């Protein structure tokens, strides 16, 4: 298939799908953050009238998914593939929403990189002619993540300054073939990178090498400079991981600083006591789906590189003394009138 691959690891989408609908449902804390007004829905609390936080997370993802389809003016029956993932064991939030959606479902797990993974796979399905409409979604919830990965929520444990705060929220996106909206032009699927970091309280350091690796690969493959983008935004490297990524890329000859930001840093105010920033699948979903997309539609960003990052470990692997492997997937998005062919 000529013309579909660029360099070693990047896919060029000759029929770029458009993001024709996006919806973000955020928790109260996220609503109080600097981007609060960009989210479609801000919930009053983290239970949403449900009995458990897990059920609440399902509800948030469900709401996001339905709202995204509404905004895209598509029916559930139009969706050819539903791609979703979350942080819960066996990705149950996505599974239970898929149960309701009842369309062909591909569950994904990329830890906090799941949004980019879903957009990447969805974009390739459409560009390859395998789908006309793809629904991509992801969710995370602070309390479901805490009780699964760390400690009971009422436990008086002290969080070190490198720790991040799992974002409560959900984001959903409808991708369409030949539709009207920001276009996904390139996809660089990441490789797992493990530099031996073992501290689950410092995921920024664990994931930064993967982010640097993917960004480097993407820029190499496309021949672009960092400044060819108006914004390069990583998922949740936070205040610790972001500077490390910048340093790593500078050493490789790329200066990101004029255009580089991180969703984990953007989503919370420093006085919200989230230490190194936000994390979780919803971190990139809320910031990208809420803020970045709206800025693209408003003409303020023409070309954006979304690089969601994930820490691919489990409480068991950490307890067994294993290090934390990281991954990052890059998705290049362009405003509809800017697409150029490399």
């Amino acid at each position, binding site marked *: 298939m000529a013309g579909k691959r660029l360099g070693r690891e990047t896919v060029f989408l000759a029929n770029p799908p458009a993001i024709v609908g996006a919806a973000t449902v955020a928790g109260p*804390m996220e609503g109080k953050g600097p981007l609060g007004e960009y989210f479609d829905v801000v919930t009053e*609390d*983290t239970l949403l009238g449900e009995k458990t936080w897990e059920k609440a997370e399902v509800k948030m993802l469900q709401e996001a998914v339905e709202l995204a389809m509404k905004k895209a003016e598509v029916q559930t029956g139009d969706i050819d593939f539903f791609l979703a993932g979350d942080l819960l064991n066996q990705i149950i939030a996505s599974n239970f929403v898929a149960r309701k959606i009842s369309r062909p479902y591909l569950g994904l797990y990329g830890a906090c990189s799941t949004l980019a993974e879903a957009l990447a796979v969805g974009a390739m399905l459409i560009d390859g002619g395998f789908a006309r409409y793809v629904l991509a979604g992801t969710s995370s919830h602070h309390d479901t993540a805490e009780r699964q990965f760390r400690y*009971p929520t*009422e436990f008086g*444990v*002290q969080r070190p300054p490198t720790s991040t705060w799992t974002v*409560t929220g959900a984001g959903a996106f409808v991708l369409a073939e030949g539709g009207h909206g920001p276009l996904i032009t390139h996809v660089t699927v990441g490789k797992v990178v493990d530099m031996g970091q073992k*501290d689950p309280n410092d995921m920024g350091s664990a994931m930064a090498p993967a982010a640097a690796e993917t960004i480097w690969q993407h820029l190499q493959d496309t021949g672009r400079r960092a400044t060819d983008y108006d914004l390069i935004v990583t998922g949740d490297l936070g205040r610790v991981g972001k500077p490390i990524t910048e340093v790593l890329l500078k050493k490789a000859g790329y200066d990101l600083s004029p255009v580089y930001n991180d969703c984990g840093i953007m989503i919370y105010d420093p006085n919200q006591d989230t230490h190194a920033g936000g994390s979780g699948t919803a971190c990139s979903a809320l910031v990208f789906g809420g803020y970045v997309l709206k800025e693209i539609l408003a003409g303020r960003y023409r070309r954006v590189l979304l690089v969601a990052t994930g820490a691919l470990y489990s409480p068991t692997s950490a307890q067994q003394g294993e290090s934390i492997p990281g991954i990052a997937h890059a998705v290049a998005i362009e405003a509809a009138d800017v697409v150029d062919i490399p």
Partner: protein
Amino acid sequence: MEYLMAFLVGGAICALAQLVMDGGKLLPAYVMVLFVSLGAIASGFGLYGRLIEIGNAGATIPLPNFGHALVQGILEDSARRGWLALLSGGLRATAMPLTMSIIAGYLFALLFTPHGKSNG
């Protein structure tokens, strides 16, 4: 005066534990295990009893006291039961706090619900 000593000794033990946790980057559970074991060992040397004389509640409130109470419980029970006290003495002496833990734990779990951390 005894209140001051309680404050100082209790605070000092906790501060030491904090230094160990931050310095060694240890998980809280490891530090708690370490300190309760140290309490038992110190008890064996008669040192923890001395600390209690100095600091009263400052020494009995922190976790090392649990180790101390177990050791002393065994030793006291050994007067009556000899070697069997190794199996009986510890829990005998700490029956009250342990039972309270279980009952209070269950009761409060029944009556209360965790309210989560991120409601603003």
